[in-house]
């Protein structure tokens, strides 16, 4: 009696195992799904533009129940993103590690070859947007257009303070461009974070900035600051009065990428899962509304198209950094 029951039991066990296993393989053949919480690395500190975007994406995923597992934002701002890049490069579980990137994705590995980071090894998930830059002054200055700005900055010489987000950052690149293009000698003073830079301008502790729209929007709406020109191919819908530098005869266009990157060595199943997920997020009305409000540009890019976009951008950034002398 005892023998029979064990036999039946083990047979049942084997059968159920087989069934369970076949079900499992059947499932995984259809679609890969995250099996544990996904680490969403942010290359910048808490409260910055990238961090806000990641937390917004997290809210879209949670609200619309797009994933069975949570996405946990982890900030690794150290060393202009070097900390984040090294962490994701060596990710122990590449299928559950993704990263939200800025332009430091290109510039930091270029400037610190010792990190051994090769961005072509990372997995292209999806470009969510390109952030734009404008030239801003305080309304009290009375300056209304780029001509008046150039006149005032020329007169002030190196007493003219341009506040920005760090040496060799995007803001520094744009300041160098303006100095060269208009024969100015503005002094570049680095601060921590774009929000702080925007506040220095509104408080009259700086003469001009090259902030992203989202950073200056509050002060602009309160009538404290004015955009003079845009570093975009076309005028921005939110700031129709600010001409592009292209219109003004200086062909200079500059963007900040906002792209989701997967860890190197991510499996094909995970890759297509994340690509599909972020396409869905990009198309959601919540993200489209966010883009409109923050004056973000650009369409969704993924896969090989995104990879070749990275390579193109990397070459552009390299040329700019070399011109600045930040790269030998």
């Amino acid at each position, binding site marked *: 009696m005892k023998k029979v029951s064990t036999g039946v039991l083990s047979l049942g066990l084997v059968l159920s195992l087989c069934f369970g296993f076949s079900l499992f393989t059947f499932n995984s053949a259809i679609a890969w799904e995250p099996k544990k919480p996904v680490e969403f690395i942010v290359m910048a500190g808490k409260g910055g533009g990238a961090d806000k975007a990641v937390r917004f994406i997290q809210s879209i995923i949670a609200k619309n129940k797009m994933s069975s597992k949570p996405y946990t934002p982890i900030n690794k701002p150290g060393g202009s993103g070097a900390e984040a890049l090294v962490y994701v490069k060596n990710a122990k579980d590449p299928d559950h590690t993704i990263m939200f990137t800025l332009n430091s994705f290109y510039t930091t590995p270029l400037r610190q070859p*010792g990190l051994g980071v090769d961005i072509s090894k990372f997995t292209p998930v999806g470009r969510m947007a390109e952030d734009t830059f404008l030239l801003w002054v305080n309304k009290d200055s009375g300056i209304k257009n780029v001509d008046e700005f150039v006149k005032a900055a020329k007169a002030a010489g*190196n007493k003219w303070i341009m506040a920005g987000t760090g*040496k060799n950052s995007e803001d520094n690149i744009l300041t160098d461009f303006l100095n060269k293009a208009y024969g100015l000698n503005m002094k570049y003073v680095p601060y921590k974070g774009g929000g702080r830079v925007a506040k220095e301008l509104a*408080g009259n502790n700086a003469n001009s900035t090259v902030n992203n729209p989202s950073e200056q929007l*509050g002060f602009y709406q309160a009538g404290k600051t004015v955009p003079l020109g845009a570093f975009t191919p076309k005028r921005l819908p939110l700031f129709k009065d600010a001409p592009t530098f292209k219109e003004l005869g200086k062909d200079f266009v500059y963007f900040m990428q906002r792209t989701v990157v997967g860890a190197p060595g991510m499996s094909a199943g995970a890759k297509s899962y994340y690509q599909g997920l972020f396409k869905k997020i990009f198309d959601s009305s919540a993200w489209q509304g966010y883009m409109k409000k923050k004056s973000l540009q650009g369409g969704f890019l993924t896969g090989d198209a995104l990879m070749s976009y990275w390579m193109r951008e990397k070459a552009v950034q390299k040329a700019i950094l070399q011109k600045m002398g930040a790269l030998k």
Partner: protein
Amino acid sequence: METLTLLIDGFAIAFEPLNLVLVIVGCALGLFIGAMPGLGSVNGVAILLPMTFLVPPTGAVIFLAAIYYGAMYGGAISSIMLGIPGASTAVATTFDGRPLALKGLADKALVAAATASFVGGTISVILFTLFAPPLAEVALTFGAPEIFALMLMAFATFVGLGGDDIPKTLFSICIGLVFGAVGLDIISGEPRLIFGGLPGFFHGINFLVLAIGIYGIAEMLWTIEVSQGEVMISQASVSFKRILANLRELKLTLKTMVMGSFLGYFVGILPAAGATPGALMAYGLAKTISKDRESFGKGNVDGVVAPEAANNAASTGAMLPMLTLGIPGSPTTAILLGGMVIWGLEPGPLLFVEHKEFVWGLIASLYAANLFSLLINIAFIPAFIWVLRLPFTILAPIIFILCIVGGFVPTMDMHDVWLMLIFGVVGYLMRKLNYPMAPAVLAIVLGPLAEPALRQSLLISGGSFSIFFTRPFASVISVLALILLLLPVAKLLYEKYLK
């Protein structure tokens, strides 16, 4: 008058049943999060942010603000009970709270901390209600020179902090400054002092790692040495009568509480400063103006009251630039700011105009959160005291585990745990050699704020130090700082030659 009507409307919103429940739950959660070493209001707010998608924006921000406030109260608990700062904002509370607990006066320290937090919260909410818009304008004009002058003042108050041995205090400050300089230099854009490119140093040395090391670990090693293996039981008892008696005695510290509240509120308003520097500065100032400076660091109630009043006041203050300028005054408000964007609110100068019910509902619930945090805190004091009665052989491993968790959580990096253990051993040795450790903690907090401010100022002025004496706010603060800095020297000369 208009603000008063708005505030009353705000109270109506804050006391809606759902919002009231959110306040109470938030306070209790915050108290727990704050009391866990390493887990501070930043982590609490960040972790619980996704939960707020379920309620309307006003309810959501009320919930998070209650956590924020509760954590400010809770941070003091582990500082006093275990000698480990429960949150970055409660580091200064350790300086005198722990010695009080060791003397068997833990209940006195806990009641003092809770009451001071309440006073700080109340004064700051009143200041917020009356002077929000003009103060926002003042905060806006505060540039790098003003911030550096303020930091100089903080350092000046701390030179006298380590007792009478000024060279050892200066040494301790310098160690803290060097640790604070590790990581990315924003002015040059280059990483520095990263010990051959160890990735763990890229994010700099988190000051909680230092604070938990030299207070938590080193303190434990010290206790083990002093007790020589004997099982020791802290003398601690508590009764309702004693709590009342403690409350009556606190009248004497009212002046310090008020001073700490005003200072904390003002420092909190400044962008990028926040509650931690505010609390440290209040501690330094309380010691400077005290008649009984000797007893600071050995269990002076004023030393508990000043930072606790200041950190609560600063947390309200930090809401101001967040709401009016869209600029966070502390890491926690940075997360709240992100939350507001998610809820579809645009922080900035127009928020006060376009979303009145949101702003004043928040302010009123800050006040409610303050009250409930006090009540919950006082109610739990007997439970906290009970923990202290545990034998050291049981308490020590608990403290050790909490220290390791506290070192790991802020950055999620094992590198920081090793670093914390090293700091623990070094802190123990420093203590044996009679080096004061509070100045090192101050320096690692304020150094990274002071250094860029100094260099930005000098960039603006073209290298001339006159910038600190020609701008109205900067000049007043700079002169005050210099007076404070030279005071000990003058005193020394006076005693040597004129007596």
